[in-house]
């Protein structure tokens, strides 16, 4: 766990269950994320990762169970404000009608927490921290996928969060940018000591950054532990998910080649 763990908050989930139209999506999940920990939830598509995240951030009410931030229920917006919870959405969730600077400074401006000049300075600092200096006046539509994700992280940092959720932070990104984003998540966790929960199906990212990770399948955790424990897990579904690759047997043969002209 990060040595700078004192700024984060403790997240506790007890018996979380949710069904849609009688179809169970989350089945009694229980786990704890400690202060300053970087916890990764991974699993195949449709395993319930995004639904779980929506519950953790308080956007959906559970059918059963409870989610506690430092012992307080996460449901009321005041709890999330008090413990400064932020989220980086899969698509970035940037407001397309606002510039990059307006997006990043939105929290401070809307809640009138700082004067405009101070907001401009904070926005410039956060953008520079993520290697986006000079993009203040650009529109989200003008940014690449990786830049949008970094702007979304900058917007989350403005809240000075104690808990950050990342939803599929490397999806739709090329491997180089995905590594950059992974490095940023790790660096922010180490330097700011913020508790981080990353939801992903990217195995490289998960094993590269996690202090602990869990494998979610059909609404249940099949494995939960430090990366080495999960890697060595004996459950066949976990092993299949962790070891699936593109090494096909038998190897693909080259197709018929047209004879070259004499």
């Amino acid at each position, binding site marked *: 766990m990060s040595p700078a763990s004192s700024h984060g908050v403790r997240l506790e989930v007890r018996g979380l269950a949710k069904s849609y139209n009688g179809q169970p999506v989350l089945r009694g999940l229980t786990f704890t994320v400690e202060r300053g920990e970087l916890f990764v939830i991974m699993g195949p598509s449709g395993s319930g990762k995004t639904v779980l995240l929506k519950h953790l951030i308080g956007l959906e009410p559970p059918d059963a169970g409870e989610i506690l931030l430092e012992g307080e229920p996460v449901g009321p917006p005041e709890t999330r404000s008090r413990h400064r*919870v*932020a*989220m980086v*959405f899969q698509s970035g969730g940037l407001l*397309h009608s606002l510039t990059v600077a307006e997006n990043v400074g*939105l929290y401070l401006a809307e809640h009138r927490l700082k004067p405009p000049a101070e907001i401009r300075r904070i926005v410039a600092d956060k953008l520079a921290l993520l290697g986006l200096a000079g993009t203040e006046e650009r529109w989200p539509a003008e940014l690449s996928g990786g830049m949008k994700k970094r702007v979304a992280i900058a917007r989350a940092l403005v809240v000075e969060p104690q808990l950050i959720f990342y939803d599929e932070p490397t999806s739709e990104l090329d491997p180089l940018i995905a590594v950059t984003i992974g490095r940023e998540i790790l660096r922010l966790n180490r330097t700011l000591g913020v508790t981080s929960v990353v939801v992903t199906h990217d195995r490289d990212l998960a094993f590269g950054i996690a202090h602990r990770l869990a494998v979610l399948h059909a609404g249940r955790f099949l494995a939960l532990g430090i990366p080495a424990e999960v890697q060595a897990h004996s459950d066949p579904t976990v092993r299949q998910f962790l070891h699936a690759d593109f090494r096909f047997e038998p190897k693909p043969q080259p197709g018929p080649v047209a004879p070259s002209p004499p």
Partner: protein
Amino acid sequence: MFHDLGEVLLLLGRTFRALPHTVRQGRKVLEQLHEIGNASLLMACLLSLFIGGVLALQTGPVLAERGLHNFIGQIVGLSMCRELAPVMMAVLIAGRIGSAMAAELGSMQVYQEIDALRTLSIHPVHYLVLPRLVAISVALPTLVVFSILVGWVGGALVSVTNYQISISLHGYVKSLGNGVDVMDVINGLLKSLGFAVAIGAIACHQGLSTTGGPRGIGRSVTKAVVNSIVMILLLDYVFTRLLMHLD
């Protein structure tokens, strides 16, 4: 349908409770007003000019045949104030602005922008619905005033130039002045205020309840426009009966 209606009323209730925040959202209200005015003013004037003209053209010759052409100003004036301007402008705004509101909020919902606002502790009703509802409630009655005036001008142009009606401009204006008083204009403005609130609430509700990607956005836009127009016609009858009693 009743489920939708209930949700629209709940959204309306939340927006009314948020009214004290209007000053804080002043910049966004002005932006919305600018957008509504820009998108609708020219179209409103054009539409009203022809409505006034057609009204005079349809009724004028019939009145003239019976020697009642001195009533043409009164008929055009009252029809524009009490019925045609409020209803036609409301239908125009439902088509142009209601659809745009539903599409914008629907797209924000689908692309997680509204979820992002919630995670930043920014209430979507305060930030998105309130400015739109306030702006449309100011803009529609203002457009109705324009519409009434331009409609009167349209009626005058036809009445004066059409040989079957053959009334002087002075006669038209005198007839208008005799038949229309301030209460008739206020009657139309009150109606249009009710229509504006209905269009804004329905469009915002449809936008915020969008699900399912681009097809969902299309569905929301269609529902917003159709439901708004149905509600305008329904409210028109209710308001007309109510205002007749007050008269």
